[in-house]
């Protein structure tokens, strides 16, 4: 009896959750459906399916925001930033965990404090640094800024992980005559692989979607990333929803695909990224 009752309760809960999930998906339905309609039809009835499919919305959006160019800018900035973040972040974290000096302890504290600091608290003087170092309107410039701005979170993730990695392997390699670079390359990097995946996933979501830093640094059209291109598009065509919605769908597409394929790692990354500080 209890078994049956329990199963009914779970069944009812499941049905409820499915309904809520449909509610969660409703915005996507509205956006995708309307992105395929001519302008007049969107205003008449936003809930209906399109009667005529207006593919021209997409070809229009594709060329107006120069999708290929902004997409490759986003890829370039995100991938290079993360490559260097992983290198300098893992090296610094390993060093800080293994060499327990006062300075290293202080540095770690500074990194954690920086994670709580809002971007607005450094934004204005940072623009002066960016200008003085001639990093304005340069994709490399933006990448260098990310190397500073995203290091604290990267170090935080690696630091917590490396603390739980046993030191014996490294000691054994040292006795076998490996130097410190060989130890790091052949012993440490393979052992922290799962955290590297987490760092890549979480930083991809953050840097790919970042808006304010690119807005401040890349004002030149040809350097725009996806969020910037979408933003300036909306500034130009306020309430031209037929173009705008197609632009939104195009803009979401790459990261949604990334998520659907890497789902397992994304979920695992969120889980291991939320360890308590």
């Amino acid at each position, binding site marked *: 009896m209890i078994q049956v009752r329990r199963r009914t309760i779970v069944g009812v809960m499941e049905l409820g959750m499915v309904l809520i*999930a449909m509610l969660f998906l*409703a915005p996507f339905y509205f956006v995708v459906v309307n992105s395929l309609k001519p302008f007049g039809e969107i205003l008449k009835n936003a*809930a209906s399916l399109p009667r005529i499919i207006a593919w021209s919305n997409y070809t229009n959006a594709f060329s107006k925001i120069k999708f290929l160019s902004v997409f490759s800018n986003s890829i370039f900035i995100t991938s290079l930033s993360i490559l260097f973040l992983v290198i300098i972040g893992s090296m610094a974290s390993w060093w800080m965990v293994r060499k327990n000096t006062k300075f290293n302890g202080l540095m770690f504290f500074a990194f954690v404090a920086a994670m709580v600091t809002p971007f*607005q608290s450094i934004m204005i003087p940072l623009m002066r640094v960016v200008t003085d170092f001639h990093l304005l309107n340069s994709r490399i410039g933006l990448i260098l800024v990310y190397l500073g701005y995203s290091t604290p979170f990267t170090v935080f993730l690696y630091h917590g992980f490396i603390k739980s990695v046993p030191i014996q392997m490294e000691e054994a390699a040292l006795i076998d005559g490996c130097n410190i670079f060989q130890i790091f390359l052949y012993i440490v990097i393979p052992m922290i692989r799962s955290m590297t995946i987490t760092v890549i996933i979480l930083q991809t979501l953050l840097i790919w979607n970042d808006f304010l830093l690119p807005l401040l640094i890349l004002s030149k059209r040809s350097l725009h990333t996806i969020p910037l291109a*979408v933003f300036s598009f909306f500034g130009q065509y306020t309430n031209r929803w037929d173009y*705008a919605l197609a632009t*939104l769908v195009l803009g979401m597409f790459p990261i949604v695909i990334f998520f659907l394929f890497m789902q397992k790692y994304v979920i695992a990354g969120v889980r291991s990224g939320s360890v308590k500080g």
Partner: protein
Amino acid sequence: MSESGNRIKQAGLATVFLGPAVFFFILIIVFPFISGIYYSFTEWNGVNATPIWVGINNFQQILFHDTQFFTSLWFTFRFTVTTLVITNVLAFGFAMVLIQPLRTKVLLRTIFFLPNVIGGVLLGFIWRFILVNGFSTIGEITKLSFFALPWLGSPETGFWGLVIVYTWRSVGYLMIIYIAHLLNIDTELMEAAHMDGAGGVYMFTRIIVPLSMPAITVCLFLALSWTFKSFDIVLSLTSGGPFRSTETVALNIYLEAFRYGNYGVGSAKSILYFLVVGVITLFQVRQTKKMEVEA
């Protein structure tokens, strides 16, 4: 090798391993932060202009004459608390259901997490369309007055519009953390309580929630920093309007510096903002940590 030779070697290695991270960190975060304190005491009207020392003028100006700053601070505060409570309650509830043996578990998890991977600017624009055009259509079809409200046209609907979007976006992320935590709770303890005749409500309020305090600490911290620092969704959804009623502090500082060109006043605001964020974060973490119990 001699003692001093070894020390030089260690310092060299430290430079190789720690140097790059520390260099960029100091250049991009530490130096701007510290020079920002100096700039907050200056009148400075643009990146290339020369800052002129004006003492505490900027702070006096903000504290006694800038009502918009306090309106923004109060809005940000109300918005944060409201969203914090709603998202965490929902995320916890969803997690409680999703740890049950459901057939659609993985699919549901994917759907709830999906909004989180999309950038704030895009989310804001998506919801501008939903709230303005979508809701009015639904209002016409269902005749429900909720949907026929002037969404984003009044301060109240702007506020709740933002709450809806943030909730929609954050619930999935927090849910993942709660699920991971709930699956780790010792089932023996629950069984023991069950044997002792503990009912559902008692189990929930006296056992599950207290044991979940570590996860709650993390989730409150995350939700707090997301909403208190919100910028891009606000910019694309309401642009701070109508009548600057939904302008968050982050947006207010941005406008002060980069639209009105008051870099000095902007720096002063950013110092105040930093202090407020610091105090609230410390308070939250300390309070919830106090409530954590040993199983």
